[in-house]
């Protein structure tokens, strides 16, 4: 078997995933912080002020990566959910549900930074800008997935139901976006776009790339940490978890089930 395929199979084993996530989550976080430090420094101090918007445009270095992540994570969530539904792989159920909260957080950051960015231009904290309106609906979709996951008792059925909702959501998201853009053009004509319509100068790009990489790394760390926690919670009664909590290294042995006896006897 190809080593990559074998590694995927291994990853599906709960104790192996626990070790993998325990090692790589902190690494991701640290890398994310390093890259983010450079990105923010460059965004605040290195890049020259914008011709039209002055210094207030700098918030785009948080707003744009957050917006992309909010959409990317939703798509990733639906992807994991599809795998979980078709092949019933428990790890993908866990990963799909672990995407929800970070994705919602990115959406909230997008909305907050978008609102802050728009205030100088619109004069109000909220102007039904099509992109922000779509982000708001995306936030409701995230809340719906999280709410549904928490409302069902059986964890596996809950993950599958919430996953199906995520798939439906991702299929409808382009439709929602298109309808909101259409709605906006119908009622308000052209609004002042947040980006001002001007192309970004090359000198403004490096910090943006850095922030995009940093948010991705941060998300990977968050995903692994949450998935690890959910994995441990689900496997709580098993031997390897007990041994882990007692301090001995885990070995991944399953508990035996001595549950049933089949007796075949004549009436």
């Amino acid at each position, binding site marked *: 078997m190809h080593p990559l395929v074998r590694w995927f199979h291994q990853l599906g084993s709960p104790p192996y995933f626990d070790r993998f996530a325990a090692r790589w989550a902190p690494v991701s976080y640290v890398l994310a912080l390093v890259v983010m430090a450079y990105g923010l420094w460059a965004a605040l101090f290195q890049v020259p002020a914008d011709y039209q918007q002055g210094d207030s445009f700098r918030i785009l270095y948080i707003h744009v990566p957050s917006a992309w992540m909010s959409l990317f994570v939703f798509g990733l969530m639906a992807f994991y959910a599809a795998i979980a539904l078709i092949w019933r792989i428990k790890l993908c159920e866990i990963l799909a549900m672990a995407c929800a909260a970070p994705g919602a957080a990115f959406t909230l950051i997008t909305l907050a930074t978008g609102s802050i960015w728009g205030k100088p231009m619109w004069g109000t904290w909220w102007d039904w800008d099509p992109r922000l309106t779509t982000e708001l609906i995306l936030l409701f979709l995230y809340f719906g997935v999280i709410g549904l996951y928490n409302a069902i008792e059986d964890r596996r059925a809950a993950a599958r139901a919430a996953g199906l909702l995520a798939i439906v959501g991702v299929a409808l998201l382009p439709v929602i976006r298109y309808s909101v853009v259409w709605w906006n053009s119908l009622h308000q004509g052209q609004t002042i776009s947040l980006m001002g319509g001007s192309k970004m100068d090359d000198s403004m790009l490096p910090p943006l790339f850095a922030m995009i990489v940093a948010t991705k790394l941060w998300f990977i760390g968050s995903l692994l940490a949450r998935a690890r926690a959910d994995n441990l919670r689900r496997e709580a009664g098993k031997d390897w978890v007990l041994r882990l909590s007692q301090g001995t290294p885990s070995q991944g042995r399953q508990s035996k089930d001595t549950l049933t*006896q089949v007796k075949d006897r004549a009436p």
Partner: protein
Amino acid sequence: MSTPPPLLAARGLRFARNEQPVFGPLAFAVDAGEALLVQGDNGAGKTTLLRVLAGLLRADAGEIDIDGRPAAPSLRARAIAYLGHLPALKADLTASENLAFLCGLHGRRRGQLPDSALAIVGLAGYQDTPARQLSAGQKKRLSLARLWLAPTPLWLLDEPYANLDLEGINLVNRMVQAHLREGGAALLTTHGAYAAPPVRTRMLTLERPA
């Protein structure tokens, strides 16, 4: 001369809920003309086993064969009739109307009429009674009438004796007997306190760990 494959065969069947094993690994078979009695205390997994066999739940591991072929949903629907805890009767519809709907949904056994089925289960004259007005035992008998009309060879009965008096218990036994005589098979769950149907029966006992 080769023996026909069993009507239902299960191999290596396992099921777990919330990481707790419910049953498994199980292996058994039910031939035509045979009844399998599934015994066990409350919570031993009898209902879950029946729901897995019916196709309402998916087993975590193992295979189920119907008539020697892997159990696909279309195959299951044509082979299995399931009588669960809930009677699947609409309270506002009469006995006849309920039977008419269920027969329209599942199909009807050739040569059997809803009225004669009602007579067999002792509900003759109750055709126009709304199901709301039937007692628990009468509702059970109505479900048995629907079972009688089902065109499928395998019956999965979850606690068929519940809510029935002695006469009702005898009715179930007679029905199972007649069904087996015609080449069908039945799988019943029971607490074990009731007499088994007087037919060729095997027992499957599910026990929880000590």
